[in-house]
């Protein structure tokens, strides 16, 4: 049996107060696409930094092609044939593809850079691995997918036999993901080894030859066969427990209408209708789901409900009162809670401490304010309450929001929005990009609020979440509500085709 391309044995890495990696054993065979999965903070990045020579392990050994090595720097790793494609690209926009690829490893001839040889080498590699890029194009106009190919070429040009790709699909759209996967298969066919880091399980299952799972710094499963494992099983391995399921128990829907939207139309500044004649009702104790491919007017509908974007026509009645022309603050003071889609840009001030973030959106209300004055003590005390009740993992309330993990940031937002007895919650992608523990906690909070009579509009891209958490489910397409489906009987497949307009 030939030696493995990479073998890590008993790797342990400690940082002050934290063990990032503990007894990691990982074998990667030559010529395979090996996927490494794990939640954010499970220790994937540290492990890859060790393999790429950016950090040295406290214990354990690294073997490359059967030979034990000590990697002191990325240069050492590159010399051993290990290359890394970072999640955030490191390209010079004002240089051409060719110049970017050879930067720092320029082929020389009579003391001058031999562009002809470099161009030939890049053309050859592009053809061989199916990495289509024009070496003489500037990088600046290139899209994300092309830039990623340039990064891969950079690594290959330096003679890498093992490629580490750190969350390569995070920045790509689905078509680009397919192209990337085709490239990876080409690389494998040419005998190269790919180590693919991801937490998107569907992708992992479709591209990998072998899958390893890392949890809390250690490998909990290695070399799983993608044909024999399900996404659900992988997810359970990642979190170490049974996955939470989004589901509602008995109906709590009342017949009291909290939100009544009639004929709502929202136009872009150019006059195009992005929300087109939408009518929907949400009753107290009801969760109304809104399914749709992103960019079909969900964001604009939500902004119109929150008063951030003006309605061109139609009415919004809230608790029987016409609020169509109310400003955002008045709506929020009247009890409309809001979980924005982009928590970093719209939900939090990352530089500000948690207790100031607790005031955000509620800065005119108790316990945060008294008249025109801020009530620091009240806001701080209530922030501590939210942290405890909503399980926000933080050492204190003076920590800036940006220092928390995404899941804990979101739990803080949910806790904040649930405070002060809201009557309507507008929730956009409340569990996107957060770990499953936080996801379960947020679902629990939604269920509890629904039982207490809260009306909820839930927009999500996670179809399982929509089907499981909705009492009523609408489908939005090109700004219009095109279908209402029964969440108790619809399958994700049917819902998916309704979203794309495949069924009328």
């Amino acid at each position, binding site marked *: 049996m030939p030696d493995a391309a990479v073998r890590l044995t008993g790797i342990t890495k400690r*940082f*002050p*107060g*934290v*063990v990032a990696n503990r007894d990691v054993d990982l074998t990667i065979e030559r010529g395979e696409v090996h996927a490494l999965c794990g939640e954010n903070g499970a220790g994937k990045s540290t492990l890859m930094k060790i393999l790429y020579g950016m950090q040295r392990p406290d214990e354990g050994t690294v073997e490359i092609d059967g030979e034990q090595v000590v990697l002191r720097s990325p240069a050492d790793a590159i010399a051993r044939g290990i290359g890394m494609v970072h999640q955030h690209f490191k390209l010079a926009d004002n240089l051409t593809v060719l110049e970017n690829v050879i930067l720092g490893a320029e082929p020389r001839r009579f003391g001058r850079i031999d562009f002809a040889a470099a161009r030939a080498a890049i053309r050859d590699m592009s053809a061989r691995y199916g990495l289509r890029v024009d070496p003489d194009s500037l990088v600046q106009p290139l899209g994300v997918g092309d830039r990623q190919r340039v990064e891969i070429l950079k690594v290959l040009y330096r003679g890498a036999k093992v490629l580490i790709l750190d969350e390569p699909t995070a920045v790509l759209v689905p078509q680009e993901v397919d192209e990337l996967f085709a490239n990876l298969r080409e690389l494998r066919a040419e005998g190269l080894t790919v180590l693919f880091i991801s937490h998107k399980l569907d992708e992992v299952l479709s591209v990998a030859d072998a899958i390893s799972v890392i949890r809390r710094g250690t490998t909990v499963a290695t070399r799983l066969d993608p044909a024999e494992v399900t996404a659900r099983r992988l997810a359970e391995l990642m979190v170490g427990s049974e996955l939470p399921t989004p589901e509602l128990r008995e109906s709590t829907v009342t017949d009291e209408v909290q939100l009544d939207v009639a004929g709502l139309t929202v136009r872009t500044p150019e006059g195009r209708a992005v929300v087109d004649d939408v009518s929907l009702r949400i009753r107290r104790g009801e969760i109304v789901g809104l399914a749709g491919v992103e960019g079909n007017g969900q964001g604009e509908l939500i902004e119109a409900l*929150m008063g*951030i974007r003006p309605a061109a026509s139609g009415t919004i009645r809230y608790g029987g009162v016409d609020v169509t022309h109310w*400003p*955002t*603050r*008045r*709506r*929020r*003071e009247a009890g409309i809670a*809001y979980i*924005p889609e*982009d928590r970093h*840009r*719209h*939900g*939090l*001030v*990352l*530089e*500000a401490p948690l207790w*100031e973030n607790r*005031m*955000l*959106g*509620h*800065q*005119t209300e108790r316990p945060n*304010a008294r008249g*025109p*004055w*801020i009530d*620091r003590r009240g806001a701080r005390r209530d922030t*501590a*309450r939210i*942290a*405890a*009740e*909503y*399980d*926000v*993992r*933080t*050492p*204190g*309330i*003076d*920590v*800036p929001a*940006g*220092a*928390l993990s995404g899941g804990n940031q979101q739990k803080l937002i949910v806790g904040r929005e649930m405070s002060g007895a809201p009557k309507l919650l507008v929730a956009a992608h409340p569990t996107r990009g957060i770990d499953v523990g936080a996801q379960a906690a947020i679902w629990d909070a939604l269920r509890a609020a629904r039982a207490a009579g809260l009306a909820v509009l839930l927009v999500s891209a996670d179809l399982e979440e929509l089907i499981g958490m909705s009492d009523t489910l609408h489908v939005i397409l090109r700004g219009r509500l095109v279908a209402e489906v029964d969440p108790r009987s619809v399958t994700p497949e049917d819902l998916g085709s309704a979203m794309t307009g495949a069924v009328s």
Partner: protein
Amino acid sequence: MSKKVPAWQAVLRGLGPRGMALRIGAPVLALLISLGITMVLLRVTGADPVSSVQAMVDYGTTPNSVVDILNRATRYYLSAVAVAIGFRMALLNIGVDGQYRLAALLAAALAGALSLPAPFGQILTIVAAMVVGGLWAAIAGVLKVTRGVSEVLSTIMLNSIATGLIAYLLNPKRLAEMRPGSNNIATPQVPSSGRVGALNGALSAIGIDLPGRLYGLLPVAIVVGIVFWVVVNYTRFGFDLKVSGLAPGAAEASGVSAKKMIVVTMVTSGAIAGLIGMPELLGASYEYSLNFPAGLGFTGITVALLGRNHPLGIAFAAVLFAFLDQTSDVLQEVEVPKEIVGVMQGVVVLTVVIVYELVRRFEIRREQRAVAGELATGHDLARAGKGR
């Protein structure tokens, strides 16, 4: 649980030596570095750095200089606070200069025409200056929210327009009169009932005797600083202002009306700008003439930057700049061109900005490490809350 405050809490609350060291250490470090660079600069120009700096300090600490420095610092301080209010919400009011000059001219014309008993004339003059400054700044604010015109461009243009307007109004046919025996043109003198006396009297009553005339309106600058600090830190308006500056998207989603904030902030900034000329007008010159101090609005931008938009920081920065300006003359006696003071001021600002940014990044990294580390070792508010 032990009663001792754990080190992580001290660090996060800024209690511990590390936190304090950073807060006080950063500006001290920056000033030491810029002093070093200044020394090198003086050396390069052929002067003896130690004796030059010594001469500046000796001259700057004479009682006469102290009064002049405090008077200058008062103007710089008001100007910098006007700028800082805009900076707080990422609004660059470059037009403080035009706002205060126009306000001073019109207030001077008003005060010269008034003859009211003691506090009313002064109050009316000051209020008029604030209104003029606020209205002039409001033009830029309204243009921004209705037409999307960048406030940087509009305020720069409004400065030029203010200059032209002042030249038009400061004319014997309109608001001004010729001063006999000179080429100077000025508004009519403020009558003695409308003036503000010097502070020297009040100070000598508590045992501080100073020569010259210390602006009677110097306390106004202190009050403005305190009000600024209270508003920014303890009011809803201050919170909205801060959030609008740090995260405009989050501010909008939280119900802050961006347009309203822009106009209100511009008007407030302009109103404070209106105060800049008042100590000089009511306490020293009693008229707006061709010799009225100009360019204070631009100095204010630098001073606000140096003072990190913090009321106390701005006070230090204003005094430092006033000291450098005041002592620049003495450099000529030791054969150093006085223009080197401008270079020194530039060096100070650049050093402070760079040092603060480095410290800020260092602090963010430390905070993130601290949060990760503390969570890993079990210091967790969520769990602690449940345990109780």
